[in-house]
């Protein structure tokens, strides 16, 4: 069962009040997402708090109202909550819980999933993320596919070339250009990214 199918299954189970089916879907999502959420959180919070923050992330994500939303948005919503819960951890030394679903108006992609997590984390990771997103958004669709396969899926230039019908040399060139662009867009001390 793929990610989208699983979310759709959970939506149906919740709407129908089917506890057993909900439990199975929740188990699969928790098992599927927890590891990477913990890894992301571990880069930013104290080791003893990683599990607690990661559980907050998944509880918030799964407790969001799912009505009428494209299932593909779930992953994006998890990503948003990861950043916000990390920010919460650093902002509030008393570590007030942030879990209650407080649906905001559906004014944007983040809002439709429900609770508006509190503050965005303003740190180097966000700057790098912006640089990555910026560099990626400048690419045409074919070059994005090259980056998806060569960097995020870590395929060799030969494998990427074969799949996308481009030369391995071009794969190298596109990948290197992408890396250089991230470097340009991530501001050094005193620099302003262009």
């Amino acid at each position: 069962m793929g990610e989208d199918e699983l979310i759709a299954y959970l939506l149906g189970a919740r709407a129908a009040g089917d506890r057993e089916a909900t439990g199975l879907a929740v188990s699969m999502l928790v098992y599927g997402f927890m590891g990477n959420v913990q890894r992301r959180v571990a880069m930013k919070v104290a080791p003893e708090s990683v599990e607690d923050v990661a559980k907050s992330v998944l509880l918030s994500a799964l407790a969001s109202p799912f009505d009428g939303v494209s299932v593909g948005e779930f992953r994006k919503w998890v990503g948003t909550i990861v950043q916000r819960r990390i920010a919460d951890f650093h902002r509030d030394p008393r570590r007030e819980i942030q879990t209650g679903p407080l649906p905001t108006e559906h004014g944007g992609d983040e809002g439709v999933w429900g609770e508006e997590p509190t503050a965005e984390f303003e740190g180097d990771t966000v700057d790098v993320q912006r640089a990555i997103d910026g560099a990626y958004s400048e690419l045409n669709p074919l070059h994005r596919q090259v980056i998806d396969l060569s960097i995020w899926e870590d395929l060799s230039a030969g494998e990427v070339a074969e799949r996308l019908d481009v030369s391995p040399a071009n794969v190298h060139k596109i990948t290197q250009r992408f890396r250089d662009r991230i470097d340009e867009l991530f501001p050094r001390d005193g620099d302003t990214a262009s």
Partner: protein
Amino acid sequence: MTDVHALLEEYIAAHQGGGEADPREWLGRAEGRDRAVLEGLIDAYLARAPMRAWDPDGFRESGLAPFAEQVTTALHGRSGAWPALLPRLRDRAALRRAELIERLAAALGAQDRQDKVGSYYHEMEQGLLPSEGVDDKVLAALGSILGQSAESLRRAGRSLLPGAGEPPAASAQAFARHASPDPAYGDASEPPPARGAVSPDPDAEPDEIDRLFRGG
């Protein structure tokens, strides 16, 4: 200067190889700006990485089953996120449930009604107690024990779904008929934990404790 892209490739290989792939190990090999870039790249990779494939045995061994059960209880209960939250807050405060109940009863001036307070607290953790009936005095006392404000506990206790905790609608039967879990995942659904505590007697004349937990 560190080659952050080489480190990223190494990290991805380790992650895809199924190991623990703790990113801190790789971050420890870079400094300053390189470390920040590597952190952002690893984060971007993990945000895009496919979710871990379902493995019922792996799930059982992961220790995540109680948390998943708590989330499920919260989704279908009447106490909002309390079933998933209160046990975590107890853990964070290093309190056993009996200790928490003892302190809660004392804070409410109900040392002699500890069993009843305990039953109601059990209902909060099991998603059985409608959160809107719980008095601010209870939440303030509980919050002071768990290091939270009454407001944050109140917020967390709001129902997660309209109609949650009520008897399933007819649509539940329809869903059960048409949307059975994949048999490959069938043995993952574990029975819910036993609900051992005795609920307060609904026929008894309400006393102060009832009013504090169920409203006037």
